[in-house]
Structure formats: structure tokens, C-alpha cells
């Protein structure tokens, strides 16, 4: 899932202070699970803004709302007429949601209410960890299921650097060395010899470096077109 984290209220206030009618718009999927931007958190942020506005003697209407997802129109289309009545939408969805919504709100700006942190998992209640970098060319079968791109501070592909100390990364004692984990895991799996091969320079064009990416499933698009139901869900605005 996409993990987000709350922005300091001071930063949010600086964004919203000059608007009269603000909607804090929550997203109830990924960012709700990590307690950053679901409807519940949107409600809290709205209250904090109202309190701040009162303290500063500003007249401001601040409401909140939540939908299941900001990244598929079918979830927010039903409320869009309502949403467009505000001066500012403070979306507490991830950056995908903010971008996607912003393309569809005409003259109303959409600002980010949270920081989008990473693709991660719930390690323990309240603890989230980054495990994938979305590089577009998965090699986890070669590294014991542990990603050196997301989890090595130097994205090294051919083994650890000289900075591994007691199984930890040179960056911090709180960070596991990904290559230490990879070696130990592959020993356990009996596949350590796979690491003897030198992996050549990677083609990063499948990653962010190739520009914004798009996945297009032609058979789905063709089917939707035939059904006359093309809802335009496969990417950005057409």
C-alpha cells in the first residue's frame, strides 16, 4: 500500500490561511490504514484549521469529507458538484490522489494535506516500512525476496558495500543492511550461489528515469469501448 504521514499543522496553515472556504478531503484506502489521511484524519485536520482560524481572527469555513479512493473517478464523481463549491480542496490522499483530483476540479486548487512517504507494509500496529521502490523491473527472485533498490541506501545490485556494521547500514544503526538480509535469506533458501553472478548495469528507463509511466491494458480498453462504458480509468485525463 501507499504509506503517508501527516504534515505539520503549521505547514498546512500556511497553505490554507488565505482561503475562505476549505474542504479537507480524505481518502479511505491506503492513507486511512496508516492513519494519515482517511476521513477520520481529515476531520481532525479540519478541526485544527478551524481552531487556528479562530485564534488568528480569520473567517473561514472548513468542512471535511471522505471517499473510498481519490485515484478512480467512480469513487469521487458522485460528490464532485459539492467539492467544486469550495475555494480550496486540501486532499489528504497520497500524491496520486492530489494529482488526479487536481486534473478534474477546474478552477479550484487542490493542495496536499499529507506527505506521501513510500510503498510499504504494516510491520506492526502503527509501524510502516518501505519495501518496494516501484522501479518497473522486478528482480526479487534474484535477491531472496528482499529489494536492494528500495532497501539498500545505495541501491547496490551486486552485494554489500564496505559499510555494513553488525548487520546494520552505515547510514544508521536503525537501518538493516539490505545486503546482509539478502545474503542471510539466500543462505536459508540454499540459493546463495545465485549472487556470484555480476549483474550488469540496469536499464533504469522502467523506473522514474524514463519519465511518467503508464500501464495500458489494450484488451480491457477495447472491451470497455465496445460496451460504451469507457470510464477513462487507465491513466490521466485524455
Amino acid at each position, binding site marked *: 500500500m501507499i504509506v503517508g504521514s501527516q504534515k505539520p499543522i503549521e505547514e498546512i496553515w500556511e497553505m490554507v490561511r488565505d482561503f475562505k472556504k476549505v474542504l479537507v478531503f480524505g481518502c479511505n484506502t491506503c492513507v486511512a490504514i496508516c492513519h494519515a489521511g482517511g476521513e477520520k484524519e481529515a476531520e481532525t485536520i479540519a478541526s485544527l484549521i478551524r481552531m487556528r482560524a479562530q485564534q488568528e481572527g480569520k473567517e473561514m469555513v472548513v468542512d471535511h469529507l471522505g471517499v473510498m479512493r481519490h485515484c478512480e473517478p467512480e469513487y469521487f464523481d458522485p460528490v464532485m458538484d459539492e467539492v467544486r463549491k469550495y475555494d480550496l480542496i486540501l486532499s489528504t490522499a497520497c500524491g496520486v490522489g492530489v494529482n488526479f483530483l487536481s486534473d478534474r476540479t477546474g478552477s479550484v486548487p487542490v493542495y496536499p494535506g499529507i506527505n506521501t512517504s513510500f510503498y510499504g507494509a504494516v510491520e506492526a500496529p502503527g509501524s510502516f516500512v518501505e519495501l518496494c521502490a516501484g522501479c518497473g523491473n522486478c528482480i526479487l527472485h534474484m535477491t531472496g525476496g528482499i529489494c536492494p533498490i528500495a532497501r539498500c*541506501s*545505495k*541501491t*547496490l*545490485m*551486486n*552485494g*554489500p*558495500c*564496505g*559499510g*555494513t*556494521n*553488525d*548487520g546494520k547500514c*552505515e*547510514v544508521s544503526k536503525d537501518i538493516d*543492511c539490505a*545486503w*546482509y538480509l539478502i*545474503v*542471510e535469506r539466500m543462505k536459508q533458501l540454499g540459493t*546463495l550461489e545465485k*549472487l*556470484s553472478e*555480476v*549483474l*550488469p*548495469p*540496469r536499464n*533504469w528507463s522502467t523506473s522514474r528515469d524514463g519519465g511518467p509511466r503508464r500501464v495500458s491494458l489494450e484488451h480491457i480498453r477495447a472491451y470497455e469501448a465496445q460496451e460504451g462504458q469507457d470510464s477513462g480509468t487507465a491513466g490521466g485525463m485524455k
Partner: protein
Amino acid sequence: MKSGSNLERVIASGKPAVTAELGPPMSADGHEVRKKAGLLKGFCDAANVTDCQTAVVRISSIAAAAIALQEGLEPVMQMTCRDRNRIAMQADLLGGAALGLKNCLCIAGDHQSFSAAGRLKGHPGAKNVYDVDTCQLVGILKKMRDEGKQEGGDPLEAAPKFFIGASWTPMADPVDFRPVNLMKKVNAGADFIQTQGIYDIEGFRSQMEKIRKMGLHERTAILGGIIVPKSAMMLKYMDSSVAGVSVPKSLIDRMNKAKAAAGEDKKKARELQEQEGIKITIELIHQVLETPGVKGVHIQAIEWESAIEGIVKAAGLYPRPTFD
């Protein structure tokens, strides 16, 4: 000869090679580089010119190496994978070769958060590159030199003829994987290897035994790393905080004893510790060179280049071989 560098010639001659280190200054003044080059010239076969070591901005390795070369000291230019993508790397390699540089050490580089172990501000918010890693960079140099091709496949009219080096930390975690780590660098094309500083000679020898069984010592020239200790505090810091470095208690005790012998006299305490540090260095050089499979030593006197002359002479490694 792959490069014809002095370092390559010394190694080919079978005599133990000596490399040293020249740290460029945080300054636009090249005189510091010339001064350091003057201290090292004649006492080593080549000197590594570090590439923004400890993730702190200094005169670039290539520029400082070119200055060292003007001063008659053969440099080993260093290239970290931290700061350049493969386009910049290859452009700089061509430039380095055009300036007359013949040795290049490929390293991952300290992470940008390192900032001289927190002693300087550094640039912890910098974006690191790591387009390629050390093994891959070694492979790129080899491809450029031996096939006359860029990584992407385009031809090079004149190939850069580098003697290719890589670093190796024999005793860092995961220790049992480190020989494989070295093998990968050798398979990628590393002609010489400089190791992390060695104090735990038994640990190093046990790793070298594995290296000999793999035959790697015959496919690359391993130069054992020696970091000249300056004080008991430095040894303790390296033991506790530097990855892959463990310092036997006996060495720390020796330094503490040297410090204590000076009583309250701080200047004398420093001098006595430096003297003891040089003694320890000379012993380590002999122990490393006596280890089968080792082809030389890489002596790092960090911000203490003036110590190299005395060390090399006392270790019986002077004069250095010369060639026509």
C-alpha cells in the same frame, strides 16, 4: 601492460607495491595538493586521490590527480558511484585519461549523510546517484579499455587505458560473503584491490586463506590496507565505529601506555602516541606483506602525509622501484 602505469609495472615486477593516499583540500587552492604530492613523491608507487571522501566537497579527484601528476607523483584517481551517472562517469574517465591518468579506483562512496562522521555540515540532503555500483563501474572501465566501447555500445576512437582498481573490506558483515564480493569485483575486471585498514591480522589471514583457495590472489593484485594510527582515541573510534575494522585490545593498550607515559604533558602525549602509531604501522606492514597472496600495501596516513617517508623507509620499502 594494460595501462603502462607505474603501479602496474611495480606489481608486474613482483616487488611489493606501495600505494599511499592524498586527500584533496576543501579549497580552490591547488597548492595544498602540490605540497602533499611533494611529501609522497618517491615514497610510494602511486597515491590514491580521494573523491570527496566522507561525502564532503573537496577539489575533485581528477583535478587533484592531474595536479599530482604535474608534480611527478603518479596518482590513482578515484571514482565513487555516489555522485555521477554512467554518462558523467565515462565522460570523466575519458577526460582523466586525456589528462594522463592511468589508474582508477572504483568505489561505492560514503553515503551523502556521512558528512565527515558528523564533524562537518556536508550535504546530507543531497540526492545520491548509484546509477551503477562498483562491480558495474569496474566492468564499464574494462569494456572501455579492452573493447574500446562505451557502456551503451558506442565505439571510442581512443580507449582510456586504466589500471582498474576496487576496494575490499575483508572483515565487514556478512563476513562469509566477503570473498564472493571480492570474486565479483575480480570477475568484473579489477586488476588491483586495496583493502580496508587491517589491524586484526588473524582475521585478515583467515579471509586471505579463502581467497587463495579461490585463486583470486593470482587474478588480481591485493594490496593490504594500513591506516596509520595517531592516537589511542583514533584506534578506539575505528574499533567501535568503522565498519569491518576491529582493533585488537593489545594495540589499543600499547597506545594508551604511550599516552600515559607523557603524564600531563599533552604535546608529549601526542608525540609519544604518534611514535607508537608509526611502530604499530611498520609491524602491520610486515605482517600484511608476509601474508601469502598479498602483493603490496596501501598506507593511509590520513591528513598526515608527512609520516609516509619515515614509515616507508623504516619498513625497508625504500627506495621504490623505477623503470625506464
